[in-house]
């Protein structure tokens, strides 16, 4: 499987895997996975196999990136204790990571049937939501996210999951409304930002402008908001303003990533690529994504940020050019 795709999938399912881990006592949390697997194996050889030990070893296999061994241990644990929630949740997630959607769905449904409260059912709904997303069944996925959100303390990612489905279904106003509700349940700035982005996608540009301006004035680093405002300008067909904001964002990003962008926070590069696209330079954007460097023409064209925020750059002889 494509490595990038695997990484993306891991990012989506990691919270689920973690949730499953939390259901058990992390008594083996102290050593690296190899040592823990070794110790657990010995313990089972000497003291007998239990569902709990098998499940603990399965999680360590997951951490070590050994999906087959993880699935094998989860299944062995469930053979011993068929309704063991930690193993069920872990197995479902491991199967999802392996793209075995049918098997993962079966496990998720089994988990739902053995759970007796919304809080316990929620992670299985979230798992089903991701299975549906993988199959591009956005309506079903959205339904499952809503079920997961019935939990007392839904994860931030679950709110974002529902919003993502609504975006895929092009129900942008509903997405704005869903995130507005999310904000009332959890004050996380992550949800607030998602809501503002949703405003832009829903062409609720007046309110989007107001929110962006508020954040622009409150932020020291402004590139996130400059890029969002450039996207608003793009929707308003205000090309000059769009380019102005994108250039300002790119200048600030250059100041932050310094002479060697490839070694910096990769999200700064992603934002840099977005800026280049908004400037109408898709090739340069792709080059930045692929190589972590800027094309020479971009380096020349884009002014460096003001010296107040990045005094070092004034003395650095240009950015690295391939």
């Amino acid at each position, binding site marked *: 499987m494509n490595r990038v795709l695997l990484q993306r999938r*891991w990012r989506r399912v990691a919270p689920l895997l973690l949730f499953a881990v939390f259901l058990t006592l992390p008594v083996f949390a102290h050593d690296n996975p190899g040592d823990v697997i070794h110790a657990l194996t010995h313990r089972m050889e000497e003291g007998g196999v239990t569902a709990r030990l098998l499940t603990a070893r399965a999680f360590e296999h997951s951490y070590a990136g050994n999906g087959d061994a993880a699935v094998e241990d989860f299944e062995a644990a469930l053979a011993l204790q068929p309704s063991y929630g930690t193993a069920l949740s872990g197995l479902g997630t491991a199967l999802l990571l392996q793209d075995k959607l049918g098997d993962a769905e079966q496990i998720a449904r089994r988990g739902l049937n053995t759970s007796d409260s919304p809080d316990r059912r929620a992670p299985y709904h979230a798992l089903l939501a991701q299975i549906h997303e993988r199959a591009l069944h956005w309506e079903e996925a959205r339904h499952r996210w809503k079920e997961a959100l019935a939990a007392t303390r839904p994860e931030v990612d679950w709110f974002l999951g529902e919003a993502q489905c609504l975006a895929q279904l092009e129900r942008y106003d509903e997405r704005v409304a869903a995130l507005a509700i999310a904000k009332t349940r959890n004050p996380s700035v992550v949800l607030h930002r998602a809501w503002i982005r949703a405003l832009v996608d829903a062409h609720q540009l007046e309110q989007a402008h107001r929110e962006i301006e508020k954040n622009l004035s409150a932020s020291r680093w402004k590139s996130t908001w400059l890029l969002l405002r450039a996207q608003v300008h793009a929707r308003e067909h205000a090309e000059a303003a769009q380019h102005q904001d994108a250039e300002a964002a790119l200048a600030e990003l250059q100041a932050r990533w310094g002479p060697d962008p490839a070694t910096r*926070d990769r999200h700064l590069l992603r934002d840099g690529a977005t800026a280049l696209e908004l400037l109408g330079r898709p090739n340069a954007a792709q080059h930045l994504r692929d190589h972590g460097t800027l094309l020479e023409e971009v380096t020349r064209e884009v002014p460096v940020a003001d010296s107040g925020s990045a005094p070092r750059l004034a003395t650095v002889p240009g950015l690295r050019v391939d």
Partner: protein
Amino acid sequence: MHTSFLRRTYALLPTLLLIATYSHGASLYRGPYLQMGTPQSMVVVWRTEGMSTPELRYGLAPETLDQVVSGSAITLRVSEDVGAENDVPRLYKEPAESAAKRNPKDHDPSTAPDTYQYEAHVKGLKPGNTYYYAVYDGDTRLAGGDAAHHFKTHPAADSAPDMRIWVLGDSGKGSKEQIMVFDAMNEFTAKSERPLDHFLHVGDMAYDDGTDWEFQKRFFEPYQSTLRNTVCWPAIGNHEGVTSRGISGYGPYFDAYVVPTAGEVGGAASGTEAYYSFDIAGVHFICLDSHDLDRKPDGAMAQWLRADLEQTSAQWLIAFWHHPPYSKGTHDSDAEHREIEMRESFMPILESAGVDLTLTGHSHIYERSMLMDGAYATPTVAEGVILDDGDGNPKGDGAYRKSAGLQPNEGSVSIVAGHGGTTNGRMGTSPVMRSISVEHGSVILDITADSLTGIMVDKYGATQDLFRIVKSGSVSPQPVKDPWQPAHDISLISRHHFNFAEDTPGGVPAYWEVATGNPTGMSVIADEGKSRHLNAVAKATPLIGVFRPNRTQKFQYESYLRFPGPSDESAGLVFGYVDPANYWQLVVDLSTSSLRISQVSEGKERLITEKEVSVVREKWIKIKMVLSNSGNAVSFDDTPTFQFDAGAELSDGHLGFIVSAENTAEFLSFKIREQVP
């Protein structure tokens, strides 16, 4: 979380009144202690056993506590057994499925019955002011009303930084070292006539399982004299994580603390108590949950961190969490996934925002780095990432220099402060560290507008390390070519784990040698491709292999041993090895089915003690010995088997293994832990 609790308390007024009506004889159980200070507010928390009519009185002098906080301004939480209304927030109770699996001998981790926790929200205060307080049950004073119970609000947000911070990690073991570290810090602050302003704990404050009882005995009671005057800002450690869950904000850790979730103390709203940020007079603090939340660069915590860092315009940026991005203490940041993920996912975000200092624990050691930037690779290397390889000491190589304000990637210092009270150790040498100590202690930070001074105060009150970062003007730090690196001195390493990995060349692990017997008797053999073991073959004389560098009398030493052959063999561990005629041994003897300790002196064996054990051939046996100040003990397959007295005759010597003549034994691994006091 607490905002909603506050709202809820209005609805609970009838319950509170009911409690007040029946209140009598409640006793103070925990606190009072301070939480979530701001320039205008403070939260005072305490617990009683039994119902009370809670009230906080405060004022500008101990004798004039003329302001009162009561009723809905006090959030109530109760233990599960208390018969209050259903929607009163409940304190931690062990889940039934965990309780069913718990060993009956283990302590019940639940909150004690009949517990009432009160969180009094004091508002409308003046910045930088000192207030005195007392907590009451009706008209009965439970604590305070004296000079010892006071708090100081944060300075105004636009004030220049001027603060002293105590940084502590991995303290909650209940050991005498824990108390010594605390006393040493108190002595240091008293001598320097500068009390603490703030307290950061980087996790593992309640060993072993973060239970409510452990919080009480190993955190709240030992540190009460500080906690009543100083807010402790916590990060969750793995030991708290046994019973508390970051994802749900559930458990004794989250019961104990009141921290910002909605930007109450500056910073961006995180929506969770697991990670948060706060501002104190020009210093922006970030607390992360490295234990049980998604540590991926796209996860919710990382997204929140980016948003938070975009907003801050502080002069200093300090981040703290539990699992160290750089360490070779009792944990290896190049091998353990939490440490690796924190380094690879979060350090780039923090350094892009100009972080000055990162504080962690988990690894039971003190390690302090040079000024560095961009050290995200695994394994960690010094080349290309050290911006200043000096010691940072103003009286030594000079302070580290950075530009004023927060500038991206101008370097940060990383401190591992996991030396607060549990057993310390060192398994290697991190190439980015400038100061390494296995002594117990804590860290004092003194911060002003343009300087940050870090001091490691050991448990005896001595300063073991001092560094300073000075931020002014504009500087352009560049990576040092061929930076200084700490020497890897094997004699300083206190923890060794040999499991004969593929990189054990030639069959003899590094630093091991055949001391006597068959010179080619050691070889490494693979077991069905999964693990490897050391095969030890003795010929006409016993084979003794020793670990060369280690010479100590106090240690833990364990191994997995197996007998593959048919004869009546004996094999085991050697300690106090001086020469082939003088050593001690712990051996499993198949001829007598016994485990015995004996001393070989001038070639003659003297039995110290012996016990019958059941040994199955071709099966791994775990033998372990602990030699410590409190006694010497031996276990066989994790079962305590006997204790023994070595008297004064055990001298320093090597550790190793022994196989009797004409026999073969296999060793799966050796673990050595020198006892670092």
